[in-house]
């Protein structure tokens, strides 16, 4: 098999202890524990080529992080086959581990009490990076991530955004060809999020790395990923381009209108569903196939200063997709 990742029929179940509430429930669980199987990932299959940036989309508990942890060799799957950069993640050993990196937004490898540079020095030894390579890579990462002023400050004194930048640098010093990123921008402000996104694109372009990420921020997905894997309740619902997903799911278009004169909402309603109306702005939604004709009518019949046709916000489309996927799954 070629490519960066091939997963076939990947499944993961956990046994979870079930306990009734109250003291009697606790006592019963002590002497006669009951277990329930939780199917975190069910029969998921996909393949990713070297250099692709792919985003996992899904609500909390959908199975995104579990899949990421299986691909990076942290978790053993209950069923299924996986090849990652040509290795079996659980038997690939250090050769495999040198080619990947796993960044978890909520769990950091930086030593809390020491400056980030000390974690970098440690990773130089752990990954056996030659001195010249280390220096070159550290310079590159320091420039791209703008770390110059924070390398010598104790990690505990850094902001969340600064810590995440250092975390990325620590995770990339060994120059992995495959990056697993779980919520890399979680909790960061908009500026820090953008800095991380710019950096990831630059890293991919420079080194041809493959990136598989999960994120709750749609901006991460739209800015970075050419392709999305939509997962819910452990099942893969969609694998393809984000634009194609939007075109398939979003049956409506939005007409964003700037009016020259105030117009009543009853008048606007003749052109489509009124999503927002606060003079001089109005947002109407109309079936995709009528969008062009409706905008022509708007221009002809109302005092329109400006008009633009857009897709509904990506968050709404994704919500809709999950709702449809859940119905499909239950039917």
């Amino acid at each position: 098999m070629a490519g960066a990742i091939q997963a076939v029929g990947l499944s993961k179940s956990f046994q979870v202890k079930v306990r009734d509430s109250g003291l009697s429930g606790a006592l019963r669980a002590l002497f006669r524990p009951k277990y329930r199987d939780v199917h975190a990932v069910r029969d998921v299959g996909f393949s990713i080529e070297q250099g692709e940036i792919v985003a996992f989309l899904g609500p909390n508990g959908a199975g995104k992080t579990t899949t990421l942890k299986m691909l990076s060799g942290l978790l053993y799957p209950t069923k299924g086959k996986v090849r990652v950069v040509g290795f079996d993640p659980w038997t690939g050993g250090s050769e495999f581990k040198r080619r990947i990196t796993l960044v978890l937004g909520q769990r950091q490898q930086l030593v809390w009490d020491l400056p980030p540079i000390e974690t970098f020095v440690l990773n130089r030894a752990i990954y056996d990076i030659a001195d010249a390579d280390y220096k070159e890579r550290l310079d590159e990462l320091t420039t791209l991530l703008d770390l110059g002023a924070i390398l010598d400050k104790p990690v505990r004194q850094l902001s969340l955004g600064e810590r995440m930048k250092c975390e990325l640098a620590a995770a990339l010093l060994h120059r992995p060809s495959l990056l697993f990123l779980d919520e890399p921008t979680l909790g960061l402000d908009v500026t820090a999020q953008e800095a991380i996104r710019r950096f990831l694109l630059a890293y991919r372009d420079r080194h041809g790395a493959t990136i598989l990420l999960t994120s709750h921020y749609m901006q991460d997905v739209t800015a970075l990923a050419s392709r999305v894997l939509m997962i819910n309740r452990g099942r893969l619902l969609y694998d393809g381009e984000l634009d194609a997903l939007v075109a398939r799911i979003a049956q409506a278009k939005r007409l964003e209108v700037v009016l020259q004169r105030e117009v009543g909402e009853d008048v606007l309603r003749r052109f489509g569903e009124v999503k927002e109306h606060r003079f001089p702005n109005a947002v109407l939604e109309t079936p995709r196939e009528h969008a062009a004709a409706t905008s022509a009518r708007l221009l002809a019949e109302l005092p329109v200063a400006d008009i633009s046709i857009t897709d509904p916000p990506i968050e709404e489309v994704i919500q809709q997709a999950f709702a449809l996927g859940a119905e499909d799954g239950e039917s």
Partner: protein
Amino acid sequence: MTAGVRIWARRYSALMRNAWMVDLQYRASIVLWIMWGVMEPAIALGIWWSIAGQGAVGGYTRTDFARYFFALTLINQLTIAWDSWYLDRWIREGDLNFKLPRPVHPVHEAIADNIAYKARSATVLLVIWTVVSLVWPVVRLPFDLKTIAITAAAVILAAMLRFLISFTTGLLAFWTTRATSIMELHAGISLFLAGRIAPLSLLPPVVAGIASWLWFPYMLAFPVDVLTKATTGHAILLGFRGQVIWIAIWLVLCRTAWKAGIKRYGAAGG
């Protein structure tokens, strides 16, 4: 030096360097831990000191007790292992998530931490011991190279054994949330069977008999007895044999627990 040895030497020195630098951030807590390590044998010595009076208990005079518990304090600090507590946190709170994807088994981080901790505590305690022995000649130990060499070997083996016990017990966190309680229980038993509260020869014969079939005496009592010359001749060889056998057994248990446990790992948290 081959390339492999050089890589590992670099890794260990980097891991130990980090451990020392973190220690330096927590100087006060280190002093407290060492005081805690001194307190238990000091209390035991106080009790035996008053029981022995001007005579002897089981052949131990006040001087013998003083030497025994001073040797015990030093060797305890040189062999103690906290890994079950660390592993419990690594497993339950998901710290293994960033240790496992590295090309170095997490056990090496634990070993390097142990070496760093022991080197630092031993230095502090040796200074304390030297100062005390200047003003209290009773605790001076015979300084002969042969005893020191044999004690060093017994201490290294005891440290390996205690590390393996602690690490393996910590691995139980893959199955239970009570791994540290099990280690507490083990520590309670070792109070009697490892010689922490009294020299083993003072224990009732039944208890001493049970201890001789288990690993406890080889964790602490044996190296202490070698240093204080309570164990000599053929008994030293038997002691080393016991240490090696129990290290081998715990090594097998440790590897088995790791291999089985890692497949159950839930990779908690993000």
